[in-house]
């Protein structure tokens, strides 16, 4: 432990003085951090206070809905930049800022002089309170696939939790930035990285691994918040004992019942390198004590190498959060052919379906189907296409199995044309938001199809001879992105806005009946949640692929924050010197975003907006 700790050093910038006069103006009842801790406040009560945004998706149900309503449809047009901050690394900015008790915490990508640096800022003024920089192993950069993003931090009990790209979980004192413990969760030498935002639940903090392209075996791991010790780890593939499948496991469908299906549904030993990584969103239902998450696609991509269903990849799991025991599972795409992993978020809401209130989980699938599942049992209540789908013909609600279109099955050296959705799916990691006021799900997503060839000449000498034969392009209509409102009860799209580029940012819904999202061509937009009318937009320094959040500063003012900085899988063409003329670069995404450098380069700026011009933050704080 001590040895590991020495690999990290924090750079604490002490908060020398707080603008006390400023704080005196506070008219919002937000208890101090110390008060919260003394009452051993739970995360649930932290987000019950509308001022806070204490986890990436704001609440355990993954709604990304804020009860704040200072900013409303009639005044959103007055939003102005209040302050901004550079995180110092011009790579894909996918992180959600957290806000607890007037302090904003944000993490940088794994690049620049201080990879995965964490910053604590006064959420109203932008003043830097402290920063922390892990000291990663230099070899780490050569291992990570794709872009070196972080999707955010976690907070609980006065601690900030950072999952680094090179597989460490770090606990920091939220007040000082002091390092409390460092635990190694994975190994870059095995191709493992971590990009997801951890989730804090019941004294634990959880994260899973990324790196499905590297022949890794997926897992989610729970770490004890106090000691930093690993509490449990659930693998996605392998024998039941590793997947934590036991007597409590009751999947709804018969084909997912049986012993060691995580081994039996694979060719000999292939589960050991079978992917199923966990790099998206965790959700938690405190009443059922269930943790929910989806696993990534099976590896390798060449599906000929892995006949069988390849359980438990592309699967939604429900687990007991205390010991990790699986309660049920649902595999969305057995024997995935198209990189349609299912790490996408699960939104936990109660819906009136056929006159009955059901505890459901809404899962906007990468495979193009918007699933509504009973979250107590894993039964699929509905699964409807929300984007163009040509490779599946539907989901059989009796068996729960998706129906692949046989004629689209990849054949070596045959180009399969018009594969929709393309490998990134109809929606990737970019999270949706749910408004309990409109009862609509707001979905940022892409609209891409692809020509797909499983192989070409391949020279391999332990080297990346990337000649991916995936060519992506805009789906029907010619646009590549969409932001839509979906009614999961009516099972229909209510309104939609098309975008020329994939909408790779997250979204946010507020009690002001506004939803926010950003575009890769540098627009940050506020939209009427009921009608889809664009009410306001700002042009940022770089394209947006971040997660917008909202909170109250200690001045009682409602702020909207989002990181600007294009990147991620679709954005490497703009920030990582991938030749835009090579259509099949970046696993085929280059072809779909060839024109991105016409609109933006990379960036690293946190933008914070508030109502102007009379907003308190426009006046300099006296010190």
């Amino acid at each position, binding site marked *: 432990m001590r040895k590991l700790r020495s690999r990290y050093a924090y750079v604490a910038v002490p908060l020398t003085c707080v603008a006390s006069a400023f704080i005196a103006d506070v008219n919002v009842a937000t208890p101090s951090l110390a008060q919260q801790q003394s009452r051993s406040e739970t995360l649930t009560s932290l987000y019950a206070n509308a001022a806070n945004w204490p986890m990436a998706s704001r609440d355990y149900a993954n709604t990304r809905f804020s009860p704040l309503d200072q900013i409303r449809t009639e005044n959103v047009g007055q939003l102005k930049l209040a302050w901004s901050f550079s995180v110092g690394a011009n790579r894909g900015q996918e992180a959600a800022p957290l806000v607890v008790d007037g302090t904003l915490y944000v993490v940088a990508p794994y690049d620049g002089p201080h990879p995965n640096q964490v910053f604590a800022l006064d959420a109203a003024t932008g003043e830097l309170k402290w920063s922390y920089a892990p000291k990663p192993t230099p070899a780490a950069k050569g291992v990570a696939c794709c872009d070196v993003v972080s999707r955010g931090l976690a907070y609980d009990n006065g601690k900030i939790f950072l999952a680094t790209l090179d597989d460490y979980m770090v606990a920091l004192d939220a007040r000082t930035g002091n390092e409390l413990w460092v635990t190694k969760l994975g190994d870059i030498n095995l191709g493992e990285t971590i990009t997801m935002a951890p989730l804090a639940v019941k004294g634990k903090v959880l994260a899973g691994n990324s790196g499905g*392209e590297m022949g890794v075996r997926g897992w989610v791991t729970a770490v004890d918040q106090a000691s930093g010790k690993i509490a449990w780890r659930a693998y996605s593939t392998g024998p039941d004992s590793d997947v934590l499948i036991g007597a409590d496991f009751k999947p709804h469908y018969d084909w997912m019942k049986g012993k060691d299906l995580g081994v039996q549904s694979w060719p000999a030993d292939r589960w050991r390198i079978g992917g199923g990584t966990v790099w998206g969103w965790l959700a938690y239902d405190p009443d059922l004590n269930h943790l929910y998450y989806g696993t990534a696609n099976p590896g390798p991509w*060449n599906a000929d*190498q892995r006949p069988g269903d390849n359980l438990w990849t592309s699967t939604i799991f429900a687990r007991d959060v205390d010991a990790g025991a699986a309660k049920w599972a649902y595999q969305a795409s057995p024997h995935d052919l198209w990189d349609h992993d299912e790490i996408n978020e699960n939104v936990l809401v109660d819906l009136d379906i056929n006159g009955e209130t059901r505890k459901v989980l809404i899962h906007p699938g990468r495979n193009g189907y918007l699933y509504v599942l009973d979250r107590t049992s894993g039964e699929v209540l509905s699964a409807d296409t929300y984007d163009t789908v040509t490779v599946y013909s539907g989901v059989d609600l009796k068996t729960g199995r998706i129906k692949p279109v046989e004629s689209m099955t990849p054949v070596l050296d045959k180009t399969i044309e018009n594969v929709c959705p393309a490998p990134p799916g109809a929606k990737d990691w970019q999270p949706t938001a749910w408004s309990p006021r409109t009862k609509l799900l707001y979905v940022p997503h892409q609209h891409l199809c692809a020509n797909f060839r499983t192989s070409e000449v391949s020279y391999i000498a*332990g*080297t990346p001879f990337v000649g991916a034969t995936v060519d992506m392009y805009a789906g029907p209509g010619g646009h590549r992105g969409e932001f839509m409102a979906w009614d999961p009860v009516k099972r229909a799209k209510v309104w939609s806005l098309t975008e020329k580029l994939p909408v790779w940012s997250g979204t946010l819904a507020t009690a002001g009946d506004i939803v926010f999202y950003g575009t890769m061509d540098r627009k940050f937009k506020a939209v009427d949640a009921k009608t889809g009318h664009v009410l306001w937009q700002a042009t940022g320094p770089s394209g947006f692929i971040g997660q917008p959040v909202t909170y109250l500063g200690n001045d009682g003012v409602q702020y909207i924050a989002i990181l600007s900085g294009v990147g991620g899988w679709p954005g490497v063409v703009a920030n990582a010197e991938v030749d835009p003329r090579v259509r099949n670069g970046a*696993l085929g995404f280059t072809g779909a975003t060839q024109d991105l450098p016409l609109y933006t380069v990379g960036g690293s700026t946190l933008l914070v907006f508030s109502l102007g011009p009379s907003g308190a933050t426009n006046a300099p704080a006296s010190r």
Partner: protein
Amino acid sequence: MRRALLLLALIIATAAVGRASWPTHEAADDLRVCADPNNLPFSNAAGEGFENRLAKLIAEELGKKLSYVWQAQRRGFIRNTLKADLCDIVMGVPTGYGPVETTAPYYRSRYVFVSRRDRDIDVASLKDARLREFRIGVHLIGDDGMNTPPAHVLAQEGMVENVVGFTIYGDYREPAPPLRLIKAVEDDAIDIAATWGPFAGYEALHSRVPLRIEAIEETSDFAPLRFSFDISMGVRKGDHALRRRLDQIISDKSAEIRAIVESYGVPVDHARNG
């Protein structure tokens, strides 16, 4: 006389252009090579790979000091090293490899079968029916829809249950992770491996049990999959002057280069008919 003058003029012009086009290289006294620190038989941080030795030869011929930038060869390697201007040259890329400007080939090798000599397995074709009875090891690449050519063919032929995949990236804490596939043959964990020749040939030199290497034959039916590749050095696109000098060295020193490559057991293809 007139002809001689023209020639002289050309030489002067070429020299001038050469100087102007890559002043940084002329000024710098080292040849910067980007390489994997743990990828024998090609390269390692101790300089024990054949590509290390070839790089040393090249540097000497250029009259430069050899320096390395080490990075694991994963996706983004070229982008993050050569294209990021951290080095001037990468060794061992397939001739015509798109992201770089490639030199003339300096060796050609092919995919082979490896088995323990004491097993007396003389399989040389992927069509051999006996393969169905063996546990066959292959390298799996993972993403990009790519795998090694033998892995693709075995899948096409319906052989999957008896095929064992070894990820090419392997466990990077161990030396030369891709060699684990051939060590599995030595350990009798698998009966036969189908792998890239340099891995097999090198491991055969160091194996504690004698290994049998058979070039994979009868591959034309599996086109467009190829089983032999010309290998070149790569420079940044547009760095024609350096590429031309490397071409000249490869031509001048072909015998020495071949001797180094073959001293590592690399099965070198003399025929040019893929």
